């Protein structure tokens, strides 16, 4: 089958390429239309930051899914499962369980007591300027890390999905130029979505993308399952045997917590697995672009409902990726996948092609399904980066400009104008950084963003909402403590230097043995928050009464 696949890929690549680009342009045209429509509806700051707070639970649930299911989870997890089997599945579980933290401890209270940003809750009973500055810093750091990972990923994907091989050109561009062009294009589009459409436009882009992604994944899942006569066991058996790894493919340990002869290495590898697991579960409820989504609905009850929808949608999606990953291993095979991309990112598109060839009428069918899935992948990236840009520009304008610089005296129009300018600037910075980083291995940045969110954002959010004694000093300690410890440890970790897959493979300054800092930096974030609080005498019982009553009852909610 493998030689056949390669041949088919050659024959259909130009049809598929044209179709991918056409579909992608259709998506861009539709979303730009929505964005322009949304811009006409965007008049107040609430419209720009929170989409007018008029979205329904289902709409926001879809948008949360659209914001959250990045290319890293669609192509990345499917690829991880296709190459490493069970461990890819293990990764996706952390992403799902994390939503319980958001549901039980964060979403409703944030919606009730905040207005536009994460800092609204953190600074509620604190000294505004220092806390908002800190929250703004950590929001931007998390978002930029995440943005770079997504945009560099987009650049790498385009040459793979459009089949631009080294030595060949496409529209006169070689693979490297195409990469840079993609990064610039993705960046420019995300800036337009955010600057023009604000939260309303961005939300609809995410809803459309979530719908496309779920539909695409559902169709592929059904085809895979049908191929194995809905017998999960035979799908798994075939995947295991075609992976070349046998039954180990269906067990944990091929990717995370790898056991080697070196006892110390094995120990650290297993610690790394635990560290990653904790960061995934605790990071989600601290991601600024996820938190701002809770403000787009009218009440906390609907915020709850939207998280329930999100859990359903995201959970179903990860079950689909399970079928897609094992399906790719079984139907495409490990050799053919790694031949295209060592990291397995093309496993899902390759599977789409294979399914199309088998079930939709030969090569043309293969080209069509490949094109659809490739276009969905681009849509996925666009929606996620737009959400990130919006969250960080909102924080710059609402927290830093309006509260810190203007000391709360900025007019609404002024604030929104600054938000739009910041979106432009942040977008431009992300484009430039991504171009510089494009040849580096930056895949670890997604996990780092989760680790920073869990270490620097979640502790002060939980303390703010539930600990009466918490104060300004505690908030600053936990944000800066969690942030610096996470970034510091990663800087000296094997993902930045000292290993062949590191960001800088040719240098070595690493001494921290884990690739994920969470297991150390998250406790540091919580501990710093506690120490910072008790070393300061400040405590505002009146303000806490207001925060607690409002967050639990919804009284006075915006």
């Amino acid at each position, binding site marked *: 089958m493998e030689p056949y696949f390669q041949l088919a890929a050659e024959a259909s690549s130009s049809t598929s390429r044209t179709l991918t680009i056409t579909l992608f342009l259709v998506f861009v045209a539709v979303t730009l239309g929505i964005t322009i429509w949304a811009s006409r509806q965007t008049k107040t700051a609430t419209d720009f930051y929170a989409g007018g707070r*008029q979205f329904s639970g289902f709409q926001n649930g879809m948008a949360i899914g659209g914001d959250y299911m990045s290319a890293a989870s669609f192509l990345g997890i499917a690829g991880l499962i296709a190459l490493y089997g069970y461990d890819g599945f293990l990764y996706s579980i952390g992403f799902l369980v994390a939503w319980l933290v958001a549901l039980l401890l964060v979403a409703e209270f944030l919606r009730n007591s905040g207005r536009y940003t994460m800092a609204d809750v953190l600074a509620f009973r604190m000294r505004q300027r220092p806390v908002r500055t800190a929250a703004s810093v950590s929001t931007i750091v998390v978002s930029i890390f995440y943005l770079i990972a997504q945009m560099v990923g987009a650049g790498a994907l385009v040459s793979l999905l459009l089949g631009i091989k080294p030595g060949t050109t496409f529209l006169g561009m070689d693979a490297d130029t195409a990469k840079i062009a993609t990064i610039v294009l993705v960046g420019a589009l995300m800036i337009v979505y955010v600057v023009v459409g604000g939260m309303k436009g961005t939300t609809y882009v995410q809803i459309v993308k979530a719908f496309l992604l779920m539909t695409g994944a559902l169709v592929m899942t059904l085809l895979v399952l049908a191929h194995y006569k809905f017998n999960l066991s035979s799908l798994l058996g075939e995947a295991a045997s075609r992976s070349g790894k046998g039954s180990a493919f269906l067990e944990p340990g091929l990717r995370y917590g790898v056991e080697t002869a070196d006892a110390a290495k094995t120990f650290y590898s297993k610690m790394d697995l635990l560290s990653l697991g904790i960061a995934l579960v605790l990071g989600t409820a601290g991601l600024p672009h996820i938190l701002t989504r809770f403000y787009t609905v009218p009440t906390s009850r609907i915020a709850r409902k939207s998280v329930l929808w999100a859990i359903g949608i995201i959970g179903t999606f990860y079950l689909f990726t399970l079928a897609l990953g094992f399906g790719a291993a079984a139907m495409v095979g490990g050799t053919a996948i790694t031949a295209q991309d060592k990291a397995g990112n093309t496993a899902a598109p390759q599977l789409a092609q294979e399914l199309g060839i088998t079930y939709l009428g030969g090569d043309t069918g293969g080209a069509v399904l490949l094109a659809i899935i490739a276009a969905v992948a681009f849509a996925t990236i666009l929606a996620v980066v737009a959400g990130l840009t919006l969250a960080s520009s909102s924080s710059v304008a609402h927290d830093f400009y309006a509260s810190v610089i203007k000391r709360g005296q900025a007019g609404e129009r002024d604030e929104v104008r600054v938000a739009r300018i910041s979106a432009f600037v942040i977008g431009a910075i992300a484009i430039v950084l991504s171009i510089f980083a494009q040849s580096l291995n930056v895949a670890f940045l997604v996990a780092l963003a989760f680790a920073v969110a869990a270490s620097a954002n979640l502790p002060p959010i939980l303390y703010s909402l539930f600990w009466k004694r918490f104060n300004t000093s505690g908030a600053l300690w936990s944000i800066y403590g969690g942030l610096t410890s996470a970034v510091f440890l990663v800087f000296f970790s094997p993902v930045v230097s000292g290993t062949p897959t590191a960001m800088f493979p040719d240098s070595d300054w690493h001494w921290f043995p884990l690739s994920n800092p969470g297991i150390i930096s998250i406790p540091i974030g919580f501990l710093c928050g506690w120490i910072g609080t008790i070393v300061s005498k400040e405590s505002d019982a009146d303000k806490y009464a207001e925060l607690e009553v409002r967050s639990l009852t919804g009284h006075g909610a915006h």
Partner: protein
Amino acid sequence: MTTDATPTDKYLEVQQSAEFAGLRRKLRNFVFPMTIAFFLWYSLYVLLSAYARGFMSVKLVGNINVALLFGLLQFVSTFLIAWYYSRYAAKELDPIADKIGDELAGTTVAATPEPVETDTTAGTTAGTTTTTATTDPEGAK
């Protein structure tokens, strides 16, 4: 910013009322233990994946092993906890929260004129007066 017409003592009074204490207790007695429970349950799964590979690789039916079952159970437990919380909240928390909220709104009468998004976009060009009242907020409240 916030129309802070509700006096602070009002919030303090509510916060110290037996009713609010009951709401807080009901909320915390649910969400804290539940958070600890699912976190331990998830940790157990990750720990088993790291340290109990023999156990995880035991085949149950065909090629379906303990590891896969455990992973799928994490999905099931997540869905169940989410469903159970929403039911609990609707039954046990929302009515009290509403009652307290209504009392607060009642006592502060004219206070807190709900943030009717005052069109600060002063120069709203005559033609585009359509407000943001778009669609269906799922019967808010």
